[in-house]
């Protein structure tokens, strides 16, 4: 940091209004940077391959389209450097933890990530729903019955989704259209998440500013929020998911709650309730708020911090927020029926009692009476809790849902609900994931929480509670890392800014030669006053210590930025639909098998051809191939999924009637054996077996897919059940012919396949993508001669050796 910059910044920071403007500019730069960093994949590639995102984005450069690239990147770096210089001009402090360690951890984590990665597919459904909303209007959308999914059941889509995301993009779409800006709904959907990430950075700034008087903390929080990989993972361009807007709403609702609580203001409480309603409309994770706010209130009460501010804020939020949340059809009466929402209701009632008691206490000042009343309150609370338990067990209130149980017992889902356990983002978090997603913040975070304990106001209690809660849940489920990230950013920003404030105080007394009451020299005061605004500012004035700490912190910040850049460009910017690899000469090669096959389905099959596949691909098929599917990622009907699992894991003779009954025309499997793509169906196969076994324990047995030695094999040693299962046959059918005899190799499972490949009689291969990732089979119609398929196929094979040209025998009259 050159002295000039400091001078300029110091002088710029003199007037209150200039300071505000400066802060605003920096904040908008940060927000812009946050947005830009999410467009990585769009920026990096040449125009032709641009935007191969989850939802692929195609910018139509109707003007000179070269605005992108360097410009955005330089904006990003400029923003970071400005912010960093602003910060570093204020001070530093160091801590344990070497970045190189965390980086290597990150790399290890990435490797493990590659193994168990589930394609992110929700964006495809959301995109499809948004298109429907834009095309048909809001009321049609509300009543949308989708007969192209869950064939033949259909899905009441309008009543079973969170409409917030679609309505948001629909509103933006119509607003832009009204301004005659010809924007495609696809582009809005792709860019919604980055746009909202800018808002999230802003919300993090506001939330942090409530916590600490240090003006730099908010800016740091905004930066952290903008580039923390834990949040980037869900807000890159194209990840058009509920989380895209929900994290902004989460942070902003918390900010409004803190505001309402601090001021005891009904207005802020109402705003908080409104945003809570928006959040409910957007994401199932709203339950996090529903539980966290009562918990905060409860902790405050237990600490003896009950106040009318708390009463006003909480009751306003609860009454209006609950009403707002009940407007969403999917939520409906859940807030008064299910256990997840009961804490909020309980605290609401408890607060009423407290308010009453508070009033009574102020009216009758008697010590004994007061004690009695406190006991009375406790008793009532206990009774209420007991009533809740009774009501739950009696069935008036729905018990905790399975997904919720799995939050407490990580082994629960594996035993009871395999369908939840089969999703990789519902797995417990591996510890390197914390370093991967948060890097430097993970060691700044506890320091920030510690600082919150230092001056424990109501809002600091919130951070403490949130930190505990969030950390626990993030440890239980990979996905919930997302809810932890905001509080980590806030806490880390508090600690980092307090460091910077202490160590980079420009106004050193030796410059002014201010004798005054400096009874300590710099090095001692560092311990006592990390942040002290009421006392006269004491700081560290030794240039050496200042320089060391500032330099170290700069290095850490830069490393953090580099880590985030690296993570974003490597791990989170490559969509799962498109796999990027390198050719031997270093050029980029894109493996685009999914879209190849989906486009083939879309163009060259009947409009209403039913596609059977494992549920992971349902949304993709619905979105990209535009064909009806049997099951999809909205896993509302476990039995239907189990039916598909049974069809996949049984012999052809068993599967064929199932497929006929469901009018299946094509079966789609994902096979990674040729390419070494590990997320394929054979690796997911055991989940299909388990889910099917849950419904038909007599017909599908997981044990039979393992060899007597307990191995899961696909080579010659595989069990008969495995070899005869439809999934195995579809995956390896005709695969031998690619290799010299006896050399067929599965590159995922590293095993050599049997010399004679499987044969199929009831289905036939219809399409296989370039790298064999997607294989599509056509279900044969009933045989013309009334034979069963196995004998018909055998007959065809037998004939083929003699007369290749003729497929069928001469026509004969059948006489029964």
């Amino acid at each position: 940091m050159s002295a000039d910059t400091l001078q300029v910044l110091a002088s710029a920071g003199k007037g209150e209004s200039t300071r505000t403007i400066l802060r605003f500019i920096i904040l908008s730069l940060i927000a812009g940077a946050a947005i830009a960093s999410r467009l990585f994949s769009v920026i990096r590639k040449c125009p032709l391959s641009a935007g191969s995102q989850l939802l692929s984005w195609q910018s139509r450069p109707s003007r000179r389209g070269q605005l992108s690239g360097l410009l955005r990147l330089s904006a990003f770096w400029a923003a970071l450097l400005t912010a960093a210089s602003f910060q570093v001009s204020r001070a530093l402090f160091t801590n344990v933890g070497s970045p190189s360690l965390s980086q290597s951890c990150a790399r290890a984590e990435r490797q493990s990530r590659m193994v168990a990665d589930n394609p992110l597919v929700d964006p495809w459904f959301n995109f499809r729903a948004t298109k429907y909303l834009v095309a048909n209007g809001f009321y049609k959308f509300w009543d949308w019955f989708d007969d192209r999914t869950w064939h033949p059941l259909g899905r009441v889509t309008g009543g079973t989704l969170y409409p917030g995301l679609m309505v948001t993009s629909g509103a933006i779409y119509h607003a832009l259209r009204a301004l005659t800006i010809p924007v495609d709904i696809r582009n809005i959907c792709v860019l919604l998440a980055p746009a909202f990430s800018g808002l999230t950075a802003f919300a993090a700034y506001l939330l942090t500013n409530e916590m600490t008087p240090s003006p730099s903390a908010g800016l740091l929080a905004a930066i952290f929020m903008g580039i923390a990989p834990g949040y980037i993972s869900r807000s890159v361009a194209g990840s058009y998911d509920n989380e895209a807007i929900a994290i902004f709403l989460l942070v902003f609702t918390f900010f409004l709650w803190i505001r309402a609580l601090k001021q005891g203001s009904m207005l802020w409480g109402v705003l908080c309730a409104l945003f809570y309603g928006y959040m409910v409309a957007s994401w199932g994770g709203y339950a996090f708020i529903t539980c966290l706010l009562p918990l905060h209130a409860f902790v405050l009460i237990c600490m003896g911090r009950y106040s009318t501010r708390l009463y006003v804020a909480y009751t306003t939020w609860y009454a209006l927020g609950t009403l707002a949340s009940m407007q969403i059809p999917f939520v409906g009466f859940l807030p008064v029926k299910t256990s997840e929402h009961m804490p909020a209701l309980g605290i609401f009632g408890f607060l009423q009692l407290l308010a009453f008691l508070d009033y009574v206490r102020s009216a009758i000042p008697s010590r004994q009476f007061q004690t009695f009343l406190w006991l009375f309150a406790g008793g009532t609370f206990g009774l209420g809790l007991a009533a809740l338990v009774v009501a739950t067990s009696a069935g008036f209130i729905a018990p905790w849902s399975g997904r919720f149980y799995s939050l407490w017992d990580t082994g629960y889902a594996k035993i009871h609900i395999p369908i939840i356990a089969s999703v990789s983002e519902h797995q417990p978090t591996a510890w390197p994931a914390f370093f991967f997603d948060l890097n430097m913040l993970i060691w700044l975070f506890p320091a920030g929480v510690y600082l919150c304990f230092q001056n424990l106001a109501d809002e600091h209690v919130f951070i403490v509670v949130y930190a505990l809660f969030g950390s626990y849940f993030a440890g239980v489920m990979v996905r919930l890392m997302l809810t932890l990230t905001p509080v980590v950013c806030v806490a880390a920003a508090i600690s980092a800014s307090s460091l910077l404030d202490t160590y980079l105080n420009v106004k050193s007394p030796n410059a002014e030669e201010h004798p005054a009451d400096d009874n300590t020299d710099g090095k001692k005061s560092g311990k006592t006053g990390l942040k002290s605004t009421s006392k006269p500012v004491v700081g560290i004035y030794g240039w050496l210590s200042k320089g060391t700490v500032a330099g170290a912190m700069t290095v850490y910040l830069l490393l953090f930025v580099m880590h985030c850049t690296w993570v974003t460009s490597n791990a989170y910017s490559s969509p799962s639909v498109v796999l990027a690899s390198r050719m031997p000469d270093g050029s980029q090669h894109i493996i685009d098998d999914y879209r190849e096959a989906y486009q083939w389905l879309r163009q060259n099959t009947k409009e209403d051809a039913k596609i059977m596949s494992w549920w992971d691909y349902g949304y993709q098929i619905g979105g990209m191939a535009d064909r009806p599917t049997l099951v999809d990622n909205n896993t509302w009907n476990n039995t239907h999924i189990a039916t598909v699992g049974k069809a996949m894991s049984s012999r052809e003779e068993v599967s064929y009637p199932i497929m006929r009954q469901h009018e299946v025309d094509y079966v789609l499997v994902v096979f990674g054996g040729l390419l070494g793509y590990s997320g394929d169906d054979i690796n997911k196969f055991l989940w299909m077996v388990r889910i099917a076994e849950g419904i038909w324990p007599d017909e599908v047995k997981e044990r039979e897919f393992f060899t007597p030695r307990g191995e899961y094999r696909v080579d010659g040693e595989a069990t008969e059940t495995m070899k005869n299962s439809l999934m195995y046959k579809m995956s390896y059918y005709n695969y031998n012919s690619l290799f010299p005899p006896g050399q067929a190799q599965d590159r995922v499972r590293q095993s050599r396949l049997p010399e004679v490949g499987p044969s199929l009689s009831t289905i036939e291969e219809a399409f296989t993508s370039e790298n064999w990732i997607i294989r599509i089979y056509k279900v044969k119609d009933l045989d013309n001669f009334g034979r069963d398929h196995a004998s018909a196929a055998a007959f065809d094979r037998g004939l083929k050796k003699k007369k290749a040209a003729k497929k069928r025998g001469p026509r004969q009259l059948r006489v029964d």
Partner: protein
Amino acid sequence: MKTSAVFSAALSLLSLVSPSSAKSTTPAASPSTPPQVWKNANLVHIISVEKNYVKENINVLVENISKQPQDEYFLPLTADEASRIGGIEVKDRKNAQAGPFGVEVVELDPKSNTQYVRIKLPAALKAGAQQTLGISYYLLKAYKPLPASIKQDEQQFLSHSFSAYCPSAYTTSKQKTEVKLPSANIPDYTKLPGSGDVKEFPVKQGTKLTYGPFDEKPAGAFEPAQVRFEFNKPVSHVTELERDIEVSHWGGNVAFEERYTLIHRGANLSDQFNRVKWAQSVYYAPNTHALREMKFPLRVGSADPYYTDVIGNVSTSRFRSNKREALLEIKPRYPLFGGWKYPFTIGWNSDAKNFLRQTVNGGYILNVPFLEGPRQPEGIEYEQVQVRVTLPEGAENVKYSTAVPSSSITSDDIEVQKTFLDTIGRTVLVIKARNLVDELRERELIVSYDYPLSASLRKPFIVFGSAMTLFVSTWVLGNLNLKFTSK
């Protein structure tokens, strides 16, 4: 096919009868058939089936046999052909400067299956005079794959039906029909009894079949003939091409976007697609009837190309751009076999100075290719083409002219489109054409329009004005005191 042959045979009988009665009467008496005022003294009919559309050339020496000067010559077509014909051009073979020929497809008798191309000569021909006409046109969707479905690695054969005698509304004294084929592998073709020193028609020379010369045939004479030939190339057919050209004066840019609905009209696969065979054939037998790749030679200076389809960006493309060429090579997501469809979109930008020029009196002239499809060795045909030229907001007095045969242009319109903060909307010239082929690519489309300075300054002023209004109104509202109490 058979019915139409019978029908036209009956028709030829009719027309055999009618001339005798019509000759003496006035020409205008029976509008359902053209008056017999011409005789084809000599006619050479060249049917070229080398590409996936038919190109026909009729070189005819016509003679006015009536008493009056004549300037209208008619060429008969079946109604089916009339819907598939395109790019009709007429020239004087002897005299290249002999003015423009007016060409138009007309329906003389709505009940009849026969329709006519009316050729208006630039100057009426005196009685007894002769002129050599060179008539060329294209027929789309002309072939049938035979067999209709084949295996993935088999050869594709197409069949084409035509008349060995050139269809004519007039008596033809002498004629010859040549069929040019893409290869020498012609397993089947119609054989006709020969005349003169030739025993049997056709005479086969390499890749050419020659029927004739025949002696005098009456008007409407028809001799069904068919040829089946190897065509192991894709039969690519674009059912609809939408081509958008957007001119921006402020950006100094012309943006192109083309949306193709492509279908392969060749033989279907008798078995399902086999990836193993396909992967092998890429190395061992690269000659295939599947469409693998398309090359778009764009104008030099084209930049920022993109290639997408309904799912999104397609990664299998390359763009080579240097001083001499700008070649966009794209591959469909999957190889295209007979009956398979693949709609896609491509687009690119170019500097306005490559296409746009200001005239001395302040107007502008835009000169762009009417059609810029792929250049394929096997050709490509377009059934419907819609070209939209979006001119800047406020452009007026729009005129256009094109070198694409006027008989192929079905309609032209001026529309208004509002985009990008427009207030009165942009002027859009929409030209619809049909039955074009890739040989007509690079034919010019010249659009002239006026674009006053006031129109170009409209948008900056309006944006500035509305922003100012917004700020001022915010400022005014911000200064209002809405509080109940004030200190």
